[in-house]
């Protein structure tokens, strides 16, 4: 069974500052990893995904994430945040063994609040 831990439920940050949202996972097999963003009263939007290859993955809106297999982490980063990045961010993992086409396990989310 897999699990995902998002260590911070809320992260306040000033505009134009860098931010890192932490995600750790637990799995007995190789995984695919994802970050999603959810703006108020909307569905989840895929930010980026790690399937294979380079461990540094670039996504939309200037976000990137790094897969670290030894630390079982997939932290999300942005070098300079904007007010419009205020949203909830979810990390998710999918099991490669099942072909990755089935269920995702989600973390409980991190609320990013960007302040002026």
């Amino acid at each position, binding site marked *: 069974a897999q699990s995902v831990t998002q260590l911070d439920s809320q992260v306040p940050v000033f505009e134009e500052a860098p931010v890192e949202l932490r995600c750790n996972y637990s799995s007995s097999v190789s995984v*695919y990893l*994802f970050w*999603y963003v959810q703006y108020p*009263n*909307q*569905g*989840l*939007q*895929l930010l980026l*995904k790690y*399937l294979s290859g380079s461990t540094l993955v670039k996504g939309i809106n200037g976000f990137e994430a790094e897969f670290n297999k030894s630390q079982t982490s997939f932290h999300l980063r942005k070098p300079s945040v904007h007010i419009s990045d205020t949203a909830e961010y*979810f990390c998710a993992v*999918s099991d*490669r063994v099942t*072909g*990755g*086409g*089935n*269920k*995702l396990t*989600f*973390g*409980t*989310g991190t609320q990013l609040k960007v302040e002026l």
Partner: protein
Amino acid sequence: DVKVTQSSRYLVKRTGEKVFLECVQDMDHENMFWYRQDPGLGLRLIYFSYDVKMKEKGDIPEGYSVSREKKERFSLILESASTNQTSMYLCASSYGDRSGGAQYFGPGTRLLVL
């Protein structure tokens, strides 16, 4: 772009009513999913389907049923709505074995049961 649509953004129903939530995707995805999202509990999987007429229970199927008669459409049914089913309902779809299982979400339906 993948598009997942849900029949309603907001819905108000009375206790005991039968409620239908509809989801349609336009990318020929094999898999479809229904989640509910509640503050502090994150996303919880209700049911999913990996093919037409196929369904599997998720983590919290009690009080719900689903129907998938066509590949592009996945319906969630609340047989007799109760106040504890007040929630945000999210539908998602994905390819079977491509894109690592990345799911694409609809805008959500916020259901209030009075």
